[in-house]
């Protein structure tokens, strides 16, 4: 199966995905990439490093919070969690995204009819 190695992802979209990934619970950076790749059925293969600037940005905006914890293998890693504002922000953006994609879908269907 061919797929683009690095699909174009708008910054906002990546943010949303990260927030979604964290909805389930705290996770470190690597864990987030794993999760996203699993869920997208490996269609989405992010250049994994692009995650980190995004994580920094999200934390700065107060949507996520980080703290150092110890993994099951006794390694130190930085874990991220959603904040209350992050949760709210995600709900808003999700609603917005759904409406947008519905509209796009409608338009595309309309022109082919």
């Amino acid at each position, binding site marked *: 199966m061919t797929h683009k190695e690095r699909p174009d992802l708008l910054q906002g979209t990546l943010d949303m995905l990260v927030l979604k990934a964290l909805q389930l619970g705290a996770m*470190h*950076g*690597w864990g987030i*990439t794993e999760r996203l790749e699993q869920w997208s059925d490996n269609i989405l*293969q992010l*250049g*994994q*490093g*692009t995650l*980190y*600037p995004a994580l*920094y*940005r999200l934390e*700065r905006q*107060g949507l996520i919070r980080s703290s*150092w914890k110890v993994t099951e293998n006794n*390694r*130190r*890693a*930085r874990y991220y969690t959603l904040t*209350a*504002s992050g949760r*709210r*922000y995600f709900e*808003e953006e999700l609603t917005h995204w759904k409406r947008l994609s519905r509209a796009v879908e409608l338009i595309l269907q309309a022109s082919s009819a």
Partner: protein
Amino acid sequence: MIEFLRRLGTLFRRSRVENGLDEEIRFHIEQQTAKNIRAGMSPDQARRAALLRFGGVERIKEATRDEFRAGWLEDAGRDLRYGVRALLRAPGFASVSILTLGLGVGAATAVFSVVNGVLLKPLAYPEPDRIVRLFQIDGNGRRMQAASEPNFEDWKNGTRSFRAMAEMSPGPAPVVVRGQSAMIPGAGVSREFFDVMGLRPVIGRGFDESEQRVGGTPAAVVSYRFWQNRLAGTSIEGQTLRTGTTTYQIVGVMPQGFDYPAASEYWVPRELRPPQRARTAHNWQVVARLADGVPLPVARADISALSRSLKARYGDDTWMFDATAIPLREQLTATSRTSVLMLFGAALMLLVIACLNVSNLLLARVANRRREMAVRLAIGAGTWRIARQLLAEALVLCVAGGVAGLLIAFAGVRALVALQPGNLPRIDNVAIDWTAMIFALAVSVMAAVILTMAATLRTGDRDLKCELAESQRMSAGGRASQRVREVLSVSQVALTLVLLIGAGLLVRSFVHVLTVDPGYRIDRALILDLTSPTYPDDDDACRRYLAFQHDLLSRLQALPAVSNVALVNDFPLGGGWYANGQFFEMSRPDEFKSYDDVRALGEEAKARAGFAGFRIASEHYFRVMGIPLIRGRVFNESDGFDAPHVAVISESLAKTKWPGQDPLGRFIQFGNMDGDVRGLRIVGIVGDVREITPESSPGALFYAHSRQRIASRFSVIVRGQPEESIASAARQILRQLNPDMPVQTRRVEEAFDRALAGRRFNLLLIGVFSVSALLLAMLGIYGLISYLVAQRTKEIGIRMALGASSRDLLRLILGKGATLALLGIGAGTIVALGLTRLVQGLLYEVTARDPIAFGGVAAVTLAAVIVASYLPARRALKVPPVDSLRV
């Protein structure tokens, strides 16, 4: 609030990007590598694949760093732009705040420049903190104005704490340079003077050995200003200056700006004149440079110990009981330190009051936007973000206020320097420079931070959620905000009170100074200050000199415009030497002919000794000056050069030296002053005179007749109209009689002005500050009462509908204002009682707790606050209850 501080902290934690990120990325790569190994790759392959999947590690780190930078700047920029727009939408609030802040910052910065220039900036000499002035201390523990040469020599040779020590004798003298004669300030300085100051001539050279001994070639070193103005910047080769009978070769020019001591423009070696052997002839000021590595206290102890041992050795032959060393800068600024610091304190108070005002306004604004902020909180903005926006607004306000303040400060400093108050030394150092600008900026930023903190004090999550649930009525948070505003207003009133009390005390001092009786009555007169270039040394020269003086007087008297003429060696209102010295009473007119005769008396000499200012006056002097004759007579024509010498003494001298006895007819020897050992018989007692400024206490004065004693420096007092033509006629006469004698004219009114200039300057500044403070406080009260009234419009409407008269309601509202005022007055009075003690030195005939000042100011403040409360109250009462009750 804590969130605010935490976020403020994260702004500066760049290190997070570096430390944590490294470890985080390493962890990520390791995990991916492990996964790849589980999938079957070899460790090497796994790692390479992981790195490939990750992307360039350095690039990612850079991208994260950029996020940090961009984010910070982007957020800041956005907030600032938002702040500016918000302020533009409220131009009234913005302009009032900016002007208020500008006033506060401007005043503080202007006075700070003065503090900096006068007190803080180091002197322009190499290692200026190592230069000290040495002073003798008398039996009363007071510093003496000058030291004697033998004491100086002993200091120089007997101490080890000083690298160099020199004596100086500064003073203006009539100098002829390039054919022009003028009074030029200069100084005789001893050998090590330039070593003490640490400066060498920039043109030419200093003195060499052959010029620094009795009978040596007279040489002079001149100041840069002298070289520019009087020599037109030409080569000094062959140029000379003449004073008295000595012509000095000009051999060097000092660096620009050097004019120590006393604005000197030329320096000559002291060693040209024979040494003074009298240990009690105090004519020298001593300056020294500390030896390397010797701290000041050690040097002080050194010279103190030496001086005390000198006292032990010489006993009554020296009047020095102890000695001390004072750093030069401190000594130069000592007299003005109190007033400068007081002005600075006052300016800071004004700044705080201005900030309180703006704080009040800001709080009011915040209160108005509570709903807006509550909504924003509800949709997810953090309290930090709201606080950040408020901070941005406050910052824009404060920086704009700071810029306005700088402009005000520029103008202010220009005005201050132009006022030229005589009491501020080093005033040319005062200017708005980088230090002042940084000060202004720092103050503005601090004000912004404090204001924001004050405004967001109660902007917590919970309070704003309550806010949403409320209607127009005051919520719990609103009440708290109102409390804060009331406290702010009370503080404003308190501080204003302190300033006003300061002003009140200064005003009362000033009025006292103006109304004090100086002992003489002369309102309009011309004063000619003259100095003879030579001192007549034999009888013939004396006769000729006296003839010249009286020729001058009679020619001036003969001018049609002139009504009265008199002469004195030290005019009371400044400009003289104020010579004083020790005299001895004799039982016969020729009992003592020398100091040894006095010593022969032994113990009795002490009883015969006295101390007084030595004045020489013409016979009409007392009449012209309006000094009353109390007993006996003043000088007349019969007291000529060959007649027995007579004297007139001041009342206080009579009372202190001869209490209960009659001084008339006694014989006095005052040879200490001019070497003339002829006795003087006291023939009259005149009223006391306050010399130099009207504030000084009347001193013991001893007047000799100008026909009998030589006054080489003297002032001629000319009464008549118009003064300009008299001045030019006088110059002509003088040119005919004695062209080498420079003359300076001044008017009595100017002299009075100059004497009061310092006091007037202080009063003006404090007056401006305190009136501004009062206006600001009134503005604050006005704003607060308006707000309170607006909040309670409904309540007022109900009361009116129920029958309350406007008078009752007025009393209610004014009562609120008065309560605030009384609280402020109370607090301010307590603070003032503590603080005014510090400025006692600036007051005249007024105690630091003067009840009239305190009471008067309290009354004025109360009245002002009531007026400020009255206006909004009246406005509210005009609204008919029907309108206010309408929802």
